[in-house]
């Protein structure tokens, strides 16, 4: 096993539905993701980017194929072990932020740490520090809906790295942001995600991100066309 590879897939496929209504979202995808690097996954809408991210993050099960994280097969893990993995080793950033509006900004960032069982004071300190770093200091008690789109996505980044994950999966993180906010977010990703020593996989349409990414794959109709 290559120590430099944090995650790899072998013949990963995902199909939805059966018979004539069967849709193949991902078809025989094999890839390796280098530790502490940023991988950009791009391709047209419906090419399987989000499906790939959900599979890599243990949010969905493949129809066939295998996923290995740190050499351990994720695709056959029990739900209990998967949730532990999502809690401790993975961080997620979604296009529409997926912040919980009934919680404050601070509580949203503390969420993962609460599920991990970290003490109150520790998770509060960590969340406040992260919010300061993403430029949301002073707005901790607000609800996510009281923040701008750019601010909400920054909170989502803070939440994703709160438990110091080894892998951060970002699904169209700049999809709802203007160019200025997109650039700002990517600087933050470089600083916070990679700065925390995490590997980052970004599914994106944004060609600026793709062009700057050290490694990239292009998906089309569920297959890797180029890397």
């Amino acid at each position, binding site marked *: 096993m290559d120590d430099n590879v944090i995650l790899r897939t072998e013949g990963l496929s995902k199909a939805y539905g059966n018979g004539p209504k069967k849709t193949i979202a991902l078809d025989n995808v094999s890839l390796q993701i280098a530790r502490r690097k940023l991988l950009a996954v791009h391709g047209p809408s419906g090419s399987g980017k*989000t499906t790939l991210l*959900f599979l890599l*993050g243990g*949010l*969905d099960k493949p129809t066939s194929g295998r996923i290995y994280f740190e050499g351990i097969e994720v695709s056959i893990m029990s*739900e*209990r072990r998967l*949730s*532990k993995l*999502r*809690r*401790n080793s993975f961080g*997620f950033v*979604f296009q529409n932020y*997926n*912040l*919980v509006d*009934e*919680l404050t900004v601070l*509580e949203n960032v503390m*969420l*993962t740490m*609460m*599920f*991990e*069982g970290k003490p*109150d004071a520790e998770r509060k300190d960590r969340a406040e520090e992260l919010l300061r770093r993403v430029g949301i200091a002073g707005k901790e008690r607000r609800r996510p809906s009281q923040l701008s789109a750019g601010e909400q996505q920054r909170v989502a980044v803070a*939440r994703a790295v709160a*438990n110091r994950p080894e892998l951060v999966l970002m699904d169209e993180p700049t999809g709802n942001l203007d160019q200025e906010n997109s650039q700002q977010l990517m600087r933050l990703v470089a600083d916070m995600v990679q700065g925390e020593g995490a590997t980052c996989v970004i599914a994106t349409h944004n060609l600026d991100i793709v062009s700057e990414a050290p490694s990239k794959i292009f998906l089309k109709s569920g297959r890797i066309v180029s890397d």
Partner: protein
Amino acid sequence: MPAFSLVRFTAKGLSRRPIRTTLTIIGLAALILTYVSVQSLVSTLEMNVSGSVSSLGGEIDVWSKGTSFPLFSRVPMSYANTVQSIPGVNLAAPVALAQMTVDNNQAVIAGVVPSELPRMLTYTMVAGTMISSNQSGILAIGKALAATVGKTSGQTLLLDGYNYSIAGVYQTNAWIDYSLIIPHSVAQQLIGWVNQTSMIVVTTQDPRNVDTIIGQIRTLLPTTDAFRTSEAPSKISPIFASLEAIATDITIIVSLSAVLGIMNSNLNNLRERMRTFAIFKATGASSSQIIRLVLYESLLIGILATLLGLGISYVVLNLVSVPVAETINVAIILVPSTFIYATILAISVSLAAAIYPALRIARVRPQEVFRFG
């Protein structure tokens, strides 16, 4: 994850959904009020009807066979001596009961042998003294009846058209407070009985021998019915015997309705919060943590509803009274065990209504919620 963190997190969540939380709490509190009211009503009737006999003291009552109410019972006075002669019997006291006109009110009067009163009845004198001889024209009146007729010791009242002097006002906190006590011999004259009484109240030297003594009374006096005093309510009326069963049925029906109603509300609530739970799962919450979240939420609602429901029940039931006889209303008796059972019931209903929704929401698949909403 520490339970305390989860409970606090849940409490905050509830406070952020004040309308739904309040409505659920009120609904559950209404269940508690229903339960406590029904059970307290039954207890009150039971204690007062039972009290019409048992508050006269004793562990065993002897009525004439086939009688459904002590007022209709009639046994020879000599039976008291027969019972008294049974080994282990401490006291066999004749008691004459009759409904009579007291001033302009109807009330049950109790004729007892004055010398036997201290061994039969536990009472305190609110005013004056208890009757102590067979002298005619004097009586002792219960505190509640005294208040109803507006009389106190030293005054006179009309008992069945005759003037009687009130020797004192007693209090027992039982049904007999709505009654009055006269000497047994005087009661016999008023009713028109010769050598007869309504019933015999028996106390034993050793309560463990009650069943044996009952058996002996039944053998010696086959025209009577001897039974434990506590069995009196069910003898008084077959309807009364089934009253507890009816109360239980009402409780079951109301509880099931509450479980289904709250479960439906929980399902709708959780369906609306599906995205929130999907986010919890995506950020690392395990299925068991989500189940615990939902159950803690219900537990908190159950506890709050219990406090509210018991509080309302206590206030409301202290304000109402129920008629146990013509012109006689008694306050609802609040039994502590009813409050304990109500607490268990409310929390059980709350948790039972949350189990299925919790199991369903724990199976939420984040990828589907995020894709399809």
